[in-house]
């Protein structure tokens, strides 16, 4: 097994720059997830690692070996595609054995590898079927099986769950996690779905427009987003962002004229500076408390156990989403007090970059 490093990867298609200097280190055995909106260059990056796309600039190193100029089959990678890309005229067994047969493995070796992978994925009963006779989830497993059989140093997954229905997606997510624990293979996984990223990753790499926005553990990124983009990309409902101007004494004046207490910052900001204040919906507290502000309930989305309440300061003002346990008591049109606790606020400067809070202890 081996680590992966992508060094200053750049890629242009004609005039369009798709990757604009991406550097990523994935440690041996790590499960790294690249997440970002569609079109940000995730697939291009993954395909460059696989050797299916040539970089305009930069290096790919796998297990200490520079593979930048090697063909895909010699890079020690296995890739699972979004469309699964199974060979339609071959049985599941033949699909999984295809690579080994080309590598001139003996029949015994091929059988052993295929049977082992089939056992791991619980697809033994499907081995003699053709892909057309499989469900989406089963095809997915076969595609993963084909990757396992290669015994790669690195697994590459390109949005492997996006073609499955919601229910199956949750189950397969769990299976991916289990598989990774079982095999311990270094994995680079690409998705546009932040839930997949949060649940699967040891480390998340947030990509936007071919540039890395932030790298860190899911917890890190959620608690300390480096900018508004990351803050709003991770977590549902997404983080509320309010425009404000810093006033004296740790206070800010919101757009609607009301005052809001700010957290202590590592470096104080001059009064009069425009900032964006972020708060996650689950951090908004409804109920009377010192510093709470009155809001009108504009709209309640009830999800069963949880409800998302949209709070409005005035009739036309931008609503603030608040997530809480639903006891059925909140009514649309009602006026409630809500607290935006200072220690739960995220502050961003005019460019969207996070302002660091004062480090306590």
């Amino acid at each position, binding site marked *: 097994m081996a680590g992966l490093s992508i060094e200053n990867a750049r890629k242009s298609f004609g005039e369009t720059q798709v990757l604009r200097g991406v550097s990523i280190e994935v440690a041996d055995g790590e499960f790294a997830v690249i997440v970002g909106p569609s079109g940000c260059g995730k697939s291009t990056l993954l395909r460059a690692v*696989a050797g299916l796309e040539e970089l305009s600039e930069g290096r790919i190193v796998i297990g200490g070996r520079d593979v930048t100029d090697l063909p895909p089959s010699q890079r020690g990678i296995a890739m699972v595609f979004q469309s699964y*890309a199974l060979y339609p005229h071959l049985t599941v067994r033949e699909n999984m054995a295809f690579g080994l047969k*080309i590598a001139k493995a003996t029949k015994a070796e091929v059988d052993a590898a295929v049977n082992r992978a089939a056992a791991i994925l619980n697809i033994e009963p499907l081995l003699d079927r053709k892909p057309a006779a499989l469900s989406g989830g089963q095809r997915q497993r076969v595609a993963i099986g084909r990757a396992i059989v290669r015994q790669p140093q690195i697994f590459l997954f390109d949005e492997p769950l996006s073609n499955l229905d919601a229910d199956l997606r949750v189950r397969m997510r769990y299976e991916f996690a289990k598989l990774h624990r079982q095999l311990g293979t270094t994995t680079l996984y690409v998705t546009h779905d932040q839930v997949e990223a949060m649940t699967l990753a040891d480390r998340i790499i947030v990509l936007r427009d071919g540039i890395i926005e932030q790298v860190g553990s899911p917890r890190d990124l959620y608690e300390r987003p480096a900018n508004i983009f990351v803050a709003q990309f991770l977590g549902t409902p997404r983080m509320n962002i309010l425009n404000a101007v810093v006033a004296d004494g740790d206070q800010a004046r919101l757009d609607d004229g009301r005052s809001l207490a700010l957290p202590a910052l590592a470096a104080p900001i001059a009064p009069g500076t425009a900032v964006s204040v972020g708060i996650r919906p689950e951090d908004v507290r409804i109920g009377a408390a010192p510093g709470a502000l009155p809001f009108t309930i504009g709209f309640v989305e009830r999800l069963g156990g949880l409800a998302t309440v949209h709070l409005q300061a005035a009739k036309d003002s931008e609503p603030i989403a608040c997530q809480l346990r639903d006891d059925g008591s909140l009514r649309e049109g009602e006026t409630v007090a809500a607290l935006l606790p200072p220690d739960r606020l995220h502050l961003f400067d005019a460019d969207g970059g996070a302002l660091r809070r004062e480090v306590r202890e």
Partner: protein
Amino acid sequence: MSARRWTVTLLAALVALLTVAPLLWMLSVSFMAPGEAAQFPPPLLPADPSLDNYRTLFGSFGIGRFLANSILVSTLATILALLFTIPAGYAFAKLRFTGRDATFRLLVAALVVPGQIGMLPLFLELKAMGLVNSYAGALVPWLAGIFGIFLVRQYCLSIPDEMLEAARIDGASEGHILRRIVLPILTPIIVTLALFVFLGSWNDFMWPLIILADQQLYTLPVALAAMSREHVQDNELMMAGAVVTTLPVLILFLALQRFYLSGLLTGSVKG
């Protein structure tokens, strides 16, 4: 609803009958005595069916040789056409190389030019190469039909790139991918194409007539034409010759119908 269905069925049957009737009459006439078909009104069935016409054909006329010639030329034409057309169509669809799309557009544009226009230049070229009056010369136009390349390319476009890339990651060479992945997927279209080429070269009259001077090398259509010049009056013999010409391809066509139809349909059904 039901009345409409009957109308459609009836119309279809009528069209089918109109199409098949001449073929059936051809078969019938081939068993008639000389001059019988020229009577008025022409008889539908032979008064005294006999195999005399076929005896003459295979005997003194020696149609067996021309039949063999035709089978040889058409088979070779089919094999050669597939050999060149399939890789070309695949390459135009799936491989990246400079000038790919421009070249392809040029080829498609050439489809507009009727084949007959190219015949004289081609003849002169082959003459310079010393291929006139040989099967090598007769086969040249079939080497890589543009329509075939177009057909294969269109079908290849429906093969997802990711599948070929998966094979590349699996370590397959381009040749291996073509043989083990692409060819099996293309089977229906290959059968269709093979039939087209076989039929085309089997029925081709003009080119073999131009390029083949030696009577021993004649294919069936050319030989029959030569025969009809000698036996202008002998309709019954000509019809027997027509039967010998039509029957093999008809049988081939019917035998491969299953593949052929699926080949024509898959494109549209799969989208």
